[in-house]
């Protein structure tokens, strides 16, 4: 090999190395309770990226505004054991002749999008005119998210928390069956598989009732009791919290290893360490950016108890994500989340002049939790968004008053309606004020959506916040 060839070769290799270094990867965690709009968000997120090259409806996504995106496509995911997010199926649901929201998620699914773009950094530009950014985004049932706080609890702590929760709202009535069956057994005695299994059965039924109740209960643990996925019928799920105050007051190490309490504890630990932990390990390792979706509208519809419940649940979640130095998610999974967005979803239900109120309401709801958390080096933003906008704002005159309303197709009746949902307060109302407040956020069905870029509210800001700085 002549010297010249050698030089050429090494130059080529170096260039390739640089090029490979320029191809970046970002992994986004979408978190939110069930029905907070994760699936809709991911569908819209992918959709906006796929059409970003030629879409002037993204004024706040600089990459699109500057027309630097050449194209984007969905890639086959290298992790074969995780099912692919069914983007085209979701779009089909939305754009069908009888449009529907995509069905709710029952298992984990993942998507990978590769975006090709023009490099603008003047140093990197010399090495390469175009580069690509790969975005991973994961969908999973929101029910499972509630298992995250379990990771830092012992069985006893969890049982104590459940006991406290029973005192709140309508839980006690819903739990009556289960409490009756539990009271029949002596928990400190030797365990009997038959009766434990029965009580667990009635505990799961109680959770299902919570889920379906009109009271909009958020905190339903463990998540897989509602949505077992591949664990359906497995004995791992045969446990329940101990809500007997006298037993909770005792020292459990004095109980026999074969006592019901100790067996329940063992099962809880197994569930926590062998089911929940691996799931979050796989999910949260390598996450760079996080978005937390919050559905404030269901809370406003249901009132004070629901508000408190969601506030407590989200605070627990945010604490689990404590991004500070010595937090346990970091110790366990070592993620490097450096940006967090908290978004109030479905803002298309709200007349635009009230969007600011919606944002303020959400911020105030999470104020305490956010104060408790030290976000070191984490950039945070919060806003009201709508992944898929299916309404339009209109002015209507009602009883001689002008009201800004939203117009859309109602989900239940499929009729076009005009809705003034009530006035969202900026400050969280007191318990007394809650009873005076009245809201009616109806569910809107998708209508008139074309297969192109989906209409949205502030998805461009979300894209810019989550991805903007990853482009060179």
């Amino acid at each position, binding site marked *: 090999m002549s010297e010249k060839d050698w030089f050429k070769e090494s130059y080529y290799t170096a260039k390739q190395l640089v090029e490979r270094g320029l191809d970046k990867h970002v992994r986004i965690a979408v978190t939110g309770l069930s029905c907070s709009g994760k699936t809709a968000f991911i569908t819209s997120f992918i959709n906006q990226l796929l059409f970003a090259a030629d879409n*002037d*409806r993204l*004024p*706040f996504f600089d990459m699109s*505004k500057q027309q630097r995106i050449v194209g984007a496509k969905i890639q086959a995911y290298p992790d074969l054991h995780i099912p692919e997010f069914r983007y085209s199926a979701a779009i089909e649901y939305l754009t069908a002749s009888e449009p529907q929201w995509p069905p709710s998620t029952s298992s984990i699914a993942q998507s990978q999008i590769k975006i090709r773009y023009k490099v603008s950094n003047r140093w990197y530009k010399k090495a390469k005119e175009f580069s690509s950014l790969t975005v991973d985004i994961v969908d999973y049932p929101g029910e499972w998210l509630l298992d995250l706080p379990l990771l830092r609890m012992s069985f006893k702590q969890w049982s104590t928390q459940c006991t406290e929760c029973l005192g709140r709202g309508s839980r006690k009535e819903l739990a009556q069956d289960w409490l009756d069956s539990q009271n029949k057994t002596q928990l400190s005695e030797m365990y009997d598989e038959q009766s434990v299994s029965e009580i667990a059965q009635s505990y799961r039924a109680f959770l299902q009732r919570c889920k379906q109740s009109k009271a909009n209960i958020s905190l339903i643990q463990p998540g897989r009791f509602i949505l077992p996925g591949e664990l359906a019928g497995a004995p791992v799920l045969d446990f329940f919290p101990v809500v007997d105050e006298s037993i909770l007051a005792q020292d459990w190490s004095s109980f026999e290893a074969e006592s019901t309490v100790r067996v329940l504890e063992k099962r809880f630990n197994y569930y926590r360490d062998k089911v929940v932990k691996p799931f979050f390990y796989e999910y949260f390792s390598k996450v760079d950016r996080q978005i937390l979706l919050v559905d404030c509208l269901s809370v406003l519809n249901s009132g004070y108890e629901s508000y408190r419940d969601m506030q407590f649940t989200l605070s627990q979640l945010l604490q689990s994500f404590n991004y500070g130095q010595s937090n346990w998610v970091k110790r366990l999974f070592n993620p490097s989340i450096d940006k967090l967005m908290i978004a109030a979803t479905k*803002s*298309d239900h709200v007349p*635009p*002049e009230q*969007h*600011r109120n919606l944002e303020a309401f959400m911020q105030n709801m999470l104020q305490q939790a956010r104060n408790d958390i030290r976000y070191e080096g984490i950039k945070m933003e919060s806003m009201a968004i709508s992944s898929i*906008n299916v309404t*339009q*704002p*209109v*002015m*209507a*005159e*009602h*009883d001689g*008053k002008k*009201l*800004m*309303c939203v*117009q859309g197709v*109602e989900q239940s*009746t499929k*009729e*076009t*309606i*005009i*809705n*003034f*949902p*009530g*006035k969202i307060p900026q400050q969280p109302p007191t318990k007394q004020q809650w009873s005076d*407040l*009245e*809201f*009616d956020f*109806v569910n809107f069905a998708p209508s008139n959506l074309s297969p192109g870029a989906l209409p949205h*509210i502030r998805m461009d800001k979300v894209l810019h916040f989550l991805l903007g700085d990853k482009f060179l």
Partner: protein
Amino acid sequence: MSNEQQDKPVKISLEKIKSQDKIEVTPINPLQLVEENEQQEAAQIVFKEQTKGGIKRLFWPAFSTLVIGAATFQTYQFIQELFLTNAMLGMAGIVVAGAALVSGGVALFNGWRARRRLANRQSAQQEFKRILQQDSYGKAGHSLQELTQEISEYVEISVLEKKYQSAKQQVHNDHELIQIYSNSVLAGLDKMALDIISKHASEAAVMVALSPLAIADMALVAWRSSKMIQELSRLYGCPQTAFGRIDMTKQVFKNMMLAGASELVAEAGVEMLGKTLTASVSTKVAQGIGIGVLISRMGIQTMSLCRPIEFTEQNKPRLSHLRKAIYNKVVGIVKNTDRDKNEERVKSPIIDDITQND
């Protein structure tokens, strides 16, 4: 309380409305949503009249009356004398005086209008700044539309306007609307403005670099910068006449003084780079570049004066880009002419300094 009733939710099926016809529905146009009470509020807040000393306040009116009176009197006497000499001459005198009066009046009027435009632009800037700090909805659209009309009187901006129209949505609040406008329409104008500045600055730089007379440089700067201010102000829709420009130039300089210190510190690094660059060229060329940079500075200040929505940290024009363009142009041209004239280059004093220090 009537207020409470309004907060209750209302849901109406559109099919039912059509049969009963009780409710009037109009698609909203955010432009029409200017709130009345807001205007009232604004009307209530008025600047208190500043009280100057009584005698002092009389100075300008008295002085100008005196000057105008004297001038009128003199002209009258002069024309009378002309009439005494010859009737035709007298007539001609009247015509000339009339023409002077009319053209002077028109110039004064135009100057006054230009100054008012600038003042209006300044208050628009304040207004947008105020809206940007609020969380309002439906107030900015109207002002932005007026602004578009104002600008399009002088500049063809339909392409930029279309960009804005397609990017904005009904759900955008005032803050977002203003940002979108700034990023579409005004960003387009900014680009053109930078071209104008770069053109004038580098032209002036080349002229200074080539001109043999130091006094001529002063005139050059005055002429080029005045021309540039005229073009820039026109571009942003508040064109300044000769009179107005003096006012504006005054403000530009004032802003440059204010910005001066911080800007100098911020750009010290770049300035150093600029010096090492200029070190290799002749003093005259270095002077030229210096003048070019000065004019660029003035241009950028003019932009921020005329731009209805203030620059942010992100979209603020940077001097460094302009500097490079000027340098390239001047050095390119001067090198060519140098070669033509086969002149000997003068060493830069900076290089002299360095060598002496060694």
